[in-house]
């Protein structure tokens, strides 16, 4: 109820820009005259022109086509990693908070331990274990993001547990799993939505960072991060290779962050209005 009402009051400009980017990435590749992998070794490093609006790269591939294909990967990583981390974080945090006592202590200390691992070290260890694979990025990002979600959810659950309606549910004899599913989790909605929205740009950011370091998506697949990485090399004589992925990444991140903030404010207002 609160979440749907909040959606109607979101700022229009970032919503519109984001919709254009997402739609272009989804459907653009179907109508483009070039594919992302189609090379033209006679036309490398072409400056932006009518035939190639954003120019071509070192192998003569169309930058716009690659940008849209890369966007699919970046956005998919952002969404999938957020969904996975939310699912793990909510289940883990709600369980720890609801059980309390020793279970809670043990579960949350484990979170602290994983939190303390340096991120890059963690990714490199993962790479050694499972090799360089697309899945690596999902796992690495989800493994980091769920920790914060679990902490947020656990804190909310502990305070919800004290509420009289939970006590009433226990006194009615409802089994614990049903109290968790029907009474605790639905009431976690606001903080979870806010944190999840804000962690989509976070995940895209981490993916770009990993790809920039060469730890992420591998050729011929590409993401905005890996396009930026290869753009940096030719920055001096073909700046369009760096500018276009950098701009679209920045615009997407800003839009998502502004949206996340707007959702948080909308839900906050509702909360302070007495819900």
């Amino acid at each position, binding site marked *: *109820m609160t979440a749907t009402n909040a959606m109607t009051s979101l700022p229009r400009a970032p919503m519109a820009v984001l919709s254009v980017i997402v739609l272009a990435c989804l459907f653009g590749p179907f109508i483009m005259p070039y594919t992302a992998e189609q090379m033209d070794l006679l036309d490398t490093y072409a400056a932006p022109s009518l035939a190639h609006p954003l120019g071509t790269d070192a192998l003569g591939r169309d930058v716009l086509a690659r940008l849209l294909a890369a966007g699919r990967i970046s956005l998919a990583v952002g969404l999938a990693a957020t969904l996975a981390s939310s699912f793990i974080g909510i289940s883990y945090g709600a369980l720890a908070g609801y059980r309390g006592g020793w279970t809670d202590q043990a579960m949350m200390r484990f979170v602290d331990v994983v939190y303390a691992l340096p991120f890059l070290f963690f990714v490199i260890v993962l790479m050694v274990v499972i090799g360089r694979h697309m899945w690596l990025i999902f796992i690495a990002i989800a493994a980091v993001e769920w920790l914060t979600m679990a902490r947020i959810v656990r804190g909310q659950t502990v305070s919800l547990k004290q*509420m*009289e*309606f939970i*006590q*009433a*549910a*226990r*006194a*009615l*004899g*409802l*089994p614990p799993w049903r109290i968790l599913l*029907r*009474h605790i989790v*639905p*009431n976690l*909605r606001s903080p979870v939505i806010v944190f999840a929205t804000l962690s989509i740009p976070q995940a895209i950011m981490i993916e770009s960072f990993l790809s920039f370091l060469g730890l992420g998506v591998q050729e011929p697949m590409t993401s905005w991060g890996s396009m930026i990485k290869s753009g940096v090399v030719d920055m001096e004589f073909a700046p369009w290779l760096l500018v276009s992925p950098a701009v679209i990444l920045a615009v997407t991140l800003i839009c998502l962050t502004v949206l996340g903030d707007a959702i948080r404010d909308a839900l906050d207002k509702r909360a302070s209005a*007495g*819900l």
Partner: protein
Amino acid sequence: MTAIVELTDLTIRYGDIIAVAGLSLSLQPGGCLGIVGESGSGKSQTGLALMGLLPKAANVSGAIRFGGLSVSGAQRRERIAMVYQDPQSSLTPHMRIAAQLAEGMAHPAADKIEAALRRAGLPDPTRVAKAYPHALSGGMRQRAMLAMALARQPDLIIADEPTTALDATVQMELLQEFVKIKQAGTAIMLISHDIGVVAGLADDVMVMKSGAVVEAGPAETVLTAPQHDYTRELIAASVIKAQSTCRHNPAKTPRIAVQGLSKTYRLGGDLFAQRRSITALHPIDVTLHDGETLAIVGESGSGKSTLAKLILGLEQPSVGRVTWDGADIAQLSAAQLRAARTKVQPIFQDPFASFDPQRSLGASIQDAIDMHHSHSSVTALLADVGLPPDFAAKYPHEASGGQNQRAAIARALACAPDILICDETLSALDKTTQTQVLALLAKLKREKNLSMLFISHDLDVVRAIADRVVILKDGRLVEEGSVDDIYERSSDPYTCKLLAAQTVPDVAAMRAKISAFETSAPAP
């Protein structure tokens, strides 16, 4: 004598909304004006106008004269002090009491601060001055607030519900301080919903309703011979009427028995903190017999809510046992306990927190019905508690406190219990609603032959419904007896003190009670 404050035809408008309409009043030095009214009646707006603290959007007309002169709000603020309802949130948590007092004084000095604390009735001002707010009890915090007000030597103190958040005995002690302040020549404007408190302190009473003065005059006249229906309603509602719960001799079959039950909470106890423990309940024996209403009475910190949670099996006792119909609930398996819970149902204090905010009232009641495969319907249950069927679709925040509390009773009845545990069920409701919900509980008890454990701090309410009373203090049982034993023949000093702290809406009686009330030193 010049009046301290004189308001002539004060009107406060917010756009088209009139918050206060043509209010006139005057207050003499050493006088006390009691303003009575429901929330939204304009009481607090009047106080803010006096302080010159109304928001910019307010359109104020009329004259405010202070000490015979027309002075600005800032100048008035120098001479007026305020005492608020909630001592928890009106003191800054990170500042020591002395520092907070010093802020309001022109020339702060340690001896002046201690003198102010002493005047507010704090027994050990040196220690209190060094303390942080969280280290003080509610009563002591409110006295510290009072000291802050007094430290500025104001001509007028505006006290907005100053004792509402306090226990009855602490309220009496604070009222005694206010009497002394009045005698020392400071004028008091007392805003309260409690007619008894106003009766004890005010010389004049003003009754407000939706921004307008309904009735004003000397306290004696207004309270004994009210001219207006609304005033009569308020006074009538302040007395809880006894409920007939058919006080036949209940059979002596124990339904709930508590033996040697105690609860100790351990605090801290991680790697870095020394483990401390607090005993919320010392070993206690209590029995609820079939068909009776047993009241557990105590002030905050008496352990009565802990006892309720232990009896409901929502917390594990440290020592002792709880039996429902002879079965020790600690020995039952999780599934057996869940099944047994149909017999014993709680109704809690906070009418809004008692329901899942994301679910409609009907859905929550339906949950309870489904849980126990009972044959009742949401509509029938709502009808039982006097709510129309369309309430099923409402969410908790769309209903009033009293309506939510009725719905909570309906949910408790959904699994056809024999025993109701009412934990401060009426405390969050206003007096009129209290009487109605109390009548409903009494009716249901009669019709469905329920036994009831009624936990409350309010002796008036308890007298109206209970058969037997247990009095708790600091986690220990003080006295146990029939209602008549406790209310008519008790010799226990604490019970007598509790009884003496009950407010009555009668000027002479309330004043006599205040002056006769025996103050004990506030506990640290």
